[in-house]
């Protein structure tokens, strides 16, 4: 991995240094997502093995681990995105605000409104910039007037720090934007329906360093209003943006702790080997 030989402290980068590992005032936040003994199967293959984790409100939780360790699969169980993949099965419980989202009869539509998602590869719809953000509002009938819709679109684009770049061309195709802009548009689109939780699946892995930095700054701002869960391949990124870090390995959750502790004094040998770059 990219950590470099023997690094055992939080990497420090100008501008956004040390924003992640805040030592104080993290455990007093209420639990937003409570996962208990969750296992996940693709057909008969077990991809996740008895995961138990608590994710706290208004904090950023990062999932790290080598490719194929199940971190993306786990992220997608939190808004039941895996439901659309045939022949998959879930055991255990994911409780969000006291409600098990895998209980029989749970409707995934309101769940996904509450738990938004940003994907690894930016996936704007082949429509205008405005329509991309307005889509979620339209299909969920969240606004009562055109003016209200315009306001919500503007507010979401501002929250995603892309408003200044697109305000003069809202009716142009979203596909004309650069990769980094497309990804921030997708974040704006997710925020427009006012979710409480935002899941991000390697949101910056396809972006250049400058676009990545903008996304990271954005994540830092967003946690004031949202609970954020981010999957990342990049350990420096996890160290920079997150309050809690969870390390996954072969479908198991090896360790979860405060980010500063995970990167300086992890309890598990496996975690230490991974964050210091001895494997992965």
């Amino acid at each position, binding site marked *: 991995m990219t950590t470099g030989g023997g690094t055992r402290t939080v990497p420090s980068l100008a501008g956004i240094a040390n924003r992640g590992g805040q030592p104080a005032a993290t455990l007093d936040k209420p639990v937003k997502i409570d996962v208990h003994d969750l296992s996940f199967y693709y057909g008969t293959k077990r991809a996740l093995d008895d995961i138990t984790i608590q994710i706290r409100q208004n904090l950023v939780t990062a999932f790290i681990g080598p490719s194929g360790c199940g971190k993306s699969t786990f992220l997608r169980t939190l*808004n039941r*995105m895996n439901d*659309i993949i*045939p022949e998959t099965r879930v055991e255990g419980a994911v409780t969000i605000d006291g409600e098990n989202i895998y209980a029989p009869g749970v409707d995934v*539509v*309101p769940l*996904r*409104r509450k738990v*938004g*998602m940003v*994907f690894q*590869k930016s*996936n*704007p*719809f*082949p429509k205008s910039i405005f329509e991309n953000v307005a*889509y*979620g509002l339209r*299909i*969920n009938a969240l606004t009562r007037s055109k003016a209200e819709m315009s306001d919500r679109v503007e507010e979401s684009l501002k929250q995603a720090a892309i408003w200044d770049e697109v305000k003069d061309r809202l009716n*142009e*195709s979203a*596909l*004309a934007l650069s990769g980094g802009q497309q990804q921030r548009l*997708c974040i704006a*689109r*997710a925020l427009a*329906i006012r979710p409480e939780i935002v899941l991000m699946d390697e949101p910056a892995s396809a972006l250049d360093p400058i676009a990545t930095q903008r996304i990271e700054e954005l994540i830092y701002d967003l946690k004031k209003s949202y609970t954020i869960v981010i999957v990342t391949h990049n350990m420096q990124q996890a160290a920079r943006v997150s309050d809690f870090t969870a390390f996954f390995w072969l479908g198991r959750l090896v360790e979860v702790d405060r980010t500063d502790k995970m990167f300086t004094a992890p309890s598990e040998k496996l975690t230490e080997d991974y964050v210091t770059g001895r494997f992965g």
Partner: protein
Amino acid sequence: MRKYGDLLFQIASMVTLVVALAALATLVYDIVSDGAGRLSLTFLTTFPSRKAEEAGVYHALMGTIWVIGLTAALALPIGVAAAIYLEEYGTRSRIARFIELNIANLAAVPSIIYGLLGLGLFVRLMGMGQSVMAGASTLALLALPVVILSTREALRTVPSSIREGSYALGATKWQTIWHQVLPMALPGVLTGLILALSRAIGETAPLITIGALTYIPFAPDSVWSKFTVLPIQVFNWVSRPQAEFHTNAAAAILVLLALLLSMNAVAIIVRDRYQRQERA
């Protein structure tokens, strides 16, 4: 040695192409030299007559437009709906595979068989008589397999990232299909429709089988009117002994070709506009 083999194959391919194109060119030249002189506005706007020089194709041209228009109106929604069911909602069961196989087979069934089915089902059993409705229904059956197959193909090319993006915003399956998947699949759907209608517009046998008239002195004024179409009029005229009627037949073929080409042109323009919108 290998180089000569390559050259030989290249020459052989070119010869085949030239032969095929030459045959087509001869055919078109022959028809144009026979029929072009007979083409005039009067030819397009007069009814058939016993005197070859006074006969026109107004009735048959109108009949073809009515029948093909109605065929498209029937085959498009039914075909697209069937394809959506099979592709998006149908399970991968044995029955589904059996249905798929049969749709592929139906596309290859000789058209006169559809004529016999139309005669039994639409003309007799459903009491439509020898009407535009019965003719269009029969041709719609003929066009359906191609529309279904090409629509399914088009639905499959829509990237899953677009579907996931829509689901993640709390869209239902139907909203995702209607707002995202179908618009992206539209160019492919239209290509299939063009292919199917191009075949249907030249069909003679099934329409004669259901009892379309070979001589009528009026144009259809509703879907329940009796009718004839251009291929039947051509068939009628070439069976006459007088050479003047053969000239009329050649001119009628030119009208049919022009109609076919303009229909395709419209579909191609619509398709390109949608594709450009997507890529932008």
